[in-house]
């Protein structure tokens, strides 16, 4: 059913493959498949593009959020500094948290769409083919 030549096929039809993949070959054989896929260049590219985006970005947004929260305790004077009208530094940073959250969501989605999705899908069909 999964066609390796159709990486753009809607993935909706795919979920069924897992159940019988487990029922087909013996455990050792499927382990071999997973090990060989894990060692393949295609997979390592996908993993690299995922991790090299996600790990640093997660570190950055967690640090940025925790610094922002810690600043209330550590530097209340700075946070009170007026910026424009009734808006002070604290409000500005808070609104920036909203902005960075939306921005990073968009960047992550773009990265996944352009760097990983196609390769991951075709590797999925390949792997499921080997498993049956």
């Amino acid at each position, binding site marked *: 059913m999964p066609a390796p030549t159709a990486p753009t096929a809607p993935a909706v039809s795919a979920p069924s493959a897992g159940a019988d993949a487990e029922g087909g070959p013996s455990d050792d054989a499927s382990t071999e498949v997973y090990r060989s896929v894990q060692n393949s260049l295609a997979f390592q590219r996908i993993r690299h593009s995922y991790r090299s985006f996600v790990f640093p970005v*997660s570190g950055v947004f967690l640090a940025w959020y925790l610094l922002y929260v810690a600043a209330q305790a550590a530097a209340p004077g700075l946070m009170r500094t007026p910026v424009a009208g009734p808006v002070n530094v604290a409000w500005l940073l808070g609104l920036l948290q*909203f902005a960075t959250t939306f921005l990073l969501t968009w960047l992550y989605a773009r990265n996944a769409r352009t760097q990983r999705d196609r390769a991951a899908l075709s590797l999925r069909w390949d792997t499921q083919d080997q498993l049956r």
Partner: protein
Amino acid sequence: MRTATPPPVAPAGDHHDLAVVLFAVIVLVTLGITFWAGRRRGGGADDFYAGGRDFTPLQNGFALSGDYLSAASFLGVAGLIALFGYDGVLYSIGFLVAWLVVLMLVAELVRNAGRYTLADVLALRLRRRKVRAAAGGASVVVTLFYLVAQMVGAGSLVALLLGTNSAEARTWTIVAVGGLMIVYVTVGGMRATTWIQIVKAFLLVAGSVLLTVLLLVRFHGDVAELMRQAAQHSGAGQRYLEPGLKYGKSFTSRLDFFSLGLALVLGTAGLPHILSRFYTVPTARAARRSTMWAIGLVGGFYLMAIALGLGATALVGSAEVRHANAAGNTAVPLLALVLGGGNGSTGGVVLFAVISAIAFATILAVVAGLTLASSAAFAHDIWAGAWRGRPRRTRGGRGVRGSRGRRALVPASRRARGGADAATGTTTAERTEDGAPVTTERQEVLVARIAAVGIGAVAIVLSLFAQQLNVAFLVGLAFAVAASANLPVLLYSLFWRRFTPRGAVWSVYGGLIPAVVLVAFSPVVSGTKVALFPGVDFHWFPLENPGLVSIPLGFLAGWIGTLTSPEPADPDRYAELEVRSLTGAGAA
């Protein structure tokens, strides 16, 4: 005073009468959805736990935000902003940023690697009953804390919205809400729960947009003027717009807020009822897109909640808000009353009743989602997985502890099911091919339904005892336990090659036990006037939220457990998890 509200549909009487009518409508509509969804069920586990896995990203995005935006958010955060200004804003930001953790580190991988629960993901590589039991148990504890928070909130809130404040009204509200959520879950399963979330999220967003537009029209779109007026009517002046009104009194209270902030940002990705939502869509890509919808909806909602909180202070006044409810929970309904034209006007009455009914729908939907996640953790992980041992059956029998030569754990339970029926999720294969005393899917779903009744009953009883506890605190606590017990083990399993079963068990208990123990010896339970036992004092832990200590302990315990493991990690199992989680090969 303009009335920019829908045409009057009810006589301009006491504004609580219309609220009662709308509450009844909400109950009838949700029950209708439940029986409609329950009618279509085929009795399969895919249907009961995962709603058939055929929801679209948009639908699931609404359902995710419906699950997430509890009454504590809708009424609580806006109320905190109305009372404490900027410190309330601070509170809402943690709830939003947490979704980046879910989006980037959890959603897609969990969708690909698991079937119904958090423990499924761990069990894919760590095939031990102990791991399943630990993760399942932690999920039940987290959802129970969360459930009690919602039901306690429901009790006081509904009583307030209906205009009575008697203890009896609160008690009966808790019992009624508990009874309804049991019906939703046992009859309708995930399909009904998801549709209830979607309807509720839509109502919540629509109601917030309506109020925000009315508010901005009132201020001619001048947000700065809104902020100035809010500061003026807050009783605190400029300090209302500065940090420290609520959390700035002492170093301990600031540290407490940091602890809460940490728990909020890391806890979301460990909440069982959020994680199980990702199984209701067909693919990891759909899981990502539903998370993006959820981030948009949750972010937009909190921006509106900030405006509404400021609006409540500016138009109603902090003193009035506090007078109606000390925690500020009725700030938004009071604002609705004013925006609709004030007390006694038709517009005000209608708007007050509508917003109250939305809050009520919010409570019902969230408790349903929690009960479902809790019963899934009990039936799928503890009963079928750990106790009956179904998911770790081997072709050659049971009892061998090695991981080699063992059938794949989670999918094995379904491996006789054909591809077609796994996709539709409507049939059950009652198999006895192994000869071992197996539990069928049908039995497991039956146990899940019974568990929903049991968990619902436990939650009702606990809520009756916990009535005087602060709702926002209970939610913060649930987040802290989720971040301490569930998140470390999940991240280690997904990303750490050398992680072992002992590391997993230690990580769960190493986060769960400190979190619960520290709370037991915190000012929340004893030693203060608002504590659970105000008469005695055995507290020695200064913070109300344990996250700052228990979250690092959870990570540390998992690390030490792994380093001291007698056996190394199984590289084969990790290969399978890694390939499956990143490509979706073999995903349910």
